[in-house]
């Protein structure tokens, strides 16, 4: 009964990979997802502030569209990015097919709506009177925005973590635009932890898939701890 065994004893399984291979996969995963999340954050927070505090026609619609973006199917996002960067696509001359940069593009598209949507909820809950106070003390728009971000810091940190979670855990789009390529020397070119997990699972090597999954979860935990530390909040209480 190998399945049962494998569930109960994943830790007694010999570590089945070369460290070199694992290291290169981790590097690609982190490079792609962190870059994508940093870019999404830089894009999303200003958008959330604008949408949250400007009144305009179609605001409800725009909010719905942002929230809908949290449900974009990653395979479709992958296809769209593939079209864009493919040889015949608009960015064909940049030679981005099957590169980490293409993966960053697709993860950006996946993470940005999550970060925007959750940040929007967070900044919307900042009391108007605190924003007014910043304005009254002579703050510029940028100052008011900064105060809002600081008041909503816990919610925004959650938004960034949710976006990071979505980016680093998704497999559909990076498989399509990245190609899950490992070189013949056994180091990853565009193979991430998730695509490697998928590969192991395809091969029925469920234990090794679980080991890679555990590595991924530990990485996410570490990144979360760092973000929480930088966010300056222990969470849950403000």
């Amino acid at each position, binding site marked *: 009964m190998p399945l049962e065994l494998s569930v109960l004893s994943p830790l007694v399984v010999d570590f089945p990979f070369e460290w070199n291979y694992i290291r290169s996969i981790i590097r690609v995963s982190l490079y792609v997802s962190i870059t994508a999340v940093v870019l999404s954050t830089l894009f999303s927070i200003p958008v959330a502030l604008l949408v949250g505090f400007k009144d305009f026609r179609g605001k409800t619609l725009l909010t719905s569209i942002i929230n809908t973006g949290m449900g974009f199917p990653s395979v479709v996002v992958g296809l769209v990015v593939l079209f864009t960067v493919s040889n015949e696509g608009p960015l064909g001359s940049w030679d981005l097919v099957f590169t980490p940069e293409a993966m960053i593009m697709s993860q950006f598209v996946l993470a940005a709506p999550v970060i925007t949507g959750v940040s929007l909820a967070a900044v919307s809950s900042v*009391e108007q*009177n*605190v924003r*007014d*106070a*910043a*304005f*009254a*003390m*002579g*703050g*510029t728009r940028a*100052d008011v925005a900064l*105060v809002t971000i*600081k*008041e909503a810091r816990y919610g925004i940190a959650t938004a960034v973590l949710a976006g990071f979670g979505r980016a680093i855990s998704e497999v559909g789009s990076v498989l399509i635009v990245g190609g899950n390529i490992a070189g013949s020397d056994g180091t990853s070119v565009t193979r991430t932890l998730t695509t490697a997990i998928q590969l192991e699972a395809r091969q029925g090597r469920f234990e090794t898939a679980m080991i890679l999954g555990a590595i991924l979860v530990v990485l996410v935990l570490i990144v979360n701890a760092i973000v929480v530390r930088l966010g300056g909040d222990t969470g849950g209480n*403000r």
Partner: protein
Amino acid sequence: MTLTADDVHHGYGTDPVFEGVSLTVAPGEVLAIIGPSGVGKSTLLRLLALFDEPDGGAIEFGGEAVWDVSERKRLDYRRRIGMVFQEASLFDASVRRNAEYGLRVRKPWSDRLRHELATLVGRTNGTGDAIDALETVGLREKAEQDAASLSGGEAQRVAFARALAYDPEMLLLDEPTSDLDPRNTAVLEDAVLEARNRGIGVVIATHDMHQAERIADRVAVLLENQIIEVGETERIFEMPRDDRTRKFIDGELIY
């Protein structure tokens, strides 16, 4: 610099709050605005603080209509005004950071960034003016406490100190002593008078008729969407021209 409201109309949605309010406050004078709850005192102070553009009429600063100038220019005007809200509206940070806020936003970004970094690594030096302002309201020793954990009156005093710290030319105070005991009220009133003596113009919305009598040079009575009377404090309290003013002051006016 004189702050003027010239025939200002304003309202929320379709309900008007004022229909034609005119008012002037000069440097070195204290103008009290009195009127019953919900009449629009806070709304008027927000207009004077350049928060919202009035639906009609003009707000002028030094004779210039502030809503006709560039946003950059308006920022300059705003920075010469200090406002204390009816609610304390403190930032979720330490008392000291609250008090420093007005000074901080006036610094160039490079300085601010440097200061934030210094704070991160633990080397911080409290800005003198902010600490002085906290000293004025008797809360110097609370500087490092979290603003959210202050008592009602402490928060109100921090909000006052926060506006005082950057030394504005014009102070707009919305019920600044509503949560204070007599002694702390006196401290704040002293600070207001001291500011006036330095040539600062003060507008104070207050429900406390005694307070208006104590510190105001002039009083404006806001009633029924209008300023029904404005004049020297003594005159308003002793021989109001409008019967409604007398009734309001005596606490007999029912709304």
